[in-house]
């Protein structure tokens, strides 16, 4: 039965072994890095030279080409992280858990970028650096969720316990994220102090949307590249006593 599953995967299952995944990841990184560079260059070109000036916000709206893609990535990466953590917990595969651990810092940085760019967008648009609108507040809570995951793993010495504990936390987190988001959205509409919302962005010209999408793809490629690089470092750390690593270092 197991051989059938392995055969059905077309031999790809073998890459669940860290010693085979390590060189594969190493080969993939340059491609994703190149894709990221190309897409971001294109996205920035569209964002600055093709997309028109906004009627109400002038040039300040161009921050969305950073703000929205990073916000999307922050949410996407959390789900991906939780996915790999869950796989690692369910199938007891080390590499899946390592991947989750590798993604977390990138997700946290994306969240930070979303918050920072959101604040700098808020200042000229609404007058204050921080607006307690639903999206920014949810992003802040998401940052805490990422940092909590990283803090929990950092506090546990045994790597397998850290993997599994992080997985439970990530799964609980991912279930809660929609609940948190909707409750924050509701909270925001209640306290209609400022009837501001960063989600009421300028009505999107098609070029603006394209620019955002291209930048989002570029951020995605970057996230993959950097997470693969980080997981390679994690593999080196965790498997440092195994023979294949020693061979690798010996040959290097």
């Amino acid at each position, binding site marked *: 039965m197991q051989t059938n599953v392995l055969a059905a995967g077309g031999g790809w299952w073998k890459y669940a072994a860290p010693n085979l995944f390590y060189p594969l990841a190493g080969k993939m990184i340059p491609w994703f890095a190149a894709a990221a560079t190309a897409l971001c260059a294109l996205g920035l070109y569209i964002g600055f030279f093709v997309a028109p000036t906004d009627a109400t916000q002038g040039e300040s709206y161009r921050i969305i080409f950073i703000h929205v893609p990073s916000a999307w990535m922050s949410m996407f990466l959390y789900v991906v992280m939780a996915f790999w953590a869950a796989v690692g917990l369910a199938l007891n595969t080390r590499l899946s858990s390592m991947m989750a651990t590798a993604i977390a810092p990138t997700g946290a940085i994306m969240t930070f970028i979303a918050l920072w760019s959101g604040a700098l967008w808020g200042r000229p648009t609404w007058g204050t650096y921080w607006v307690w609108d639903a999206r920014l507040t949810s992003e802040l809570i998401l940052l805490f969720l990422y940092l909590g995951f990283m803090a929990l793993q950092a506090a546990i010495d045994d790597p397998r316990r850290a993997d599994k*504990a992080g997985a*439970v936390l990530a799964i609980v987190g991912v279930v809660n994220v929609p*609940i948190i988001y909707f409750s924050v959205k509701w909270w925001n509409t*209640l306290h209609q102090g400022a009837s501001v919302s960063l989600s009421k962005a300028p009505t999107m010209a098609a070029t603006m949307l394209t620019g955002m999408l291209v930048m989002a793809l570029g951020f995605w490629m970057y996230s993959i590249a950097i997470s693969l690089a980080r997981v390679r470092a994690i593999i080196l750390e965790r498997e440092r006593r195994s023979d294949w690593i020693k061979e690798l270092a010996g040959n290097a």
Partner: protein
Amino acid sequence: MLRTLAAVVRRDLLLAFRQRADVANTLLFFVVVVTMVPLGVGAEPNLLRSIAPGVVWVAALLAAILSLNRLFAADFADGTLEQMLISAEPLPLIVLGKTAAHWLVTGVPVTAIAVVLGIMFDLGVGETATLMASLALGTPVLSLIGAVGAALTLGLRGGGVLVSLLVLPLYVPVLILGAGSVEAVAAGLGGGPYLLLLGALALFAIVLTPWAVSAALRISVE
């Protein structure tokens, strides 16, 4: 099954009763924190009335978090927890019992004393009643979600602060709904929808969290 539940609840209540000071301290902390706020923001009645729901609820969150280590730490230290893990009784059931006892000993006193806090902040009768109802529905969720955090961080250094970091973001919906219910009543709209949602959240938590806690306990102990 009910017998097991009752036995677990009884045991934990008995243990808590023997350490009454512990329990009382949590309640005291709750009241002290709430008292600090007017000292910090000034005693203007309108201001206090408007911030009361949020203040009481935030204090409830903090008090819940502080009391969490009582859930598993003692049993972990003397080996009882391991016995629970290998017992024939389903672990989620035991977890539910322990969490229920925890709620009886922390959440219920907090809810009860909200009456006094309502007076301190000059809340109306409707508001105070809603506050107590929201606490009655919300504190079980705090105990249940908190149990997940307590189980994950069992035996770790930096325990108390780490648990807070993990659990507070997850508490946000309860906080918003709980405080929101009272504010809605104060604004003349009904608190009903909020309380119903809180109830739904409570049911959701009762059904799902014991499984997460059980998984976390097995991970932490083995």
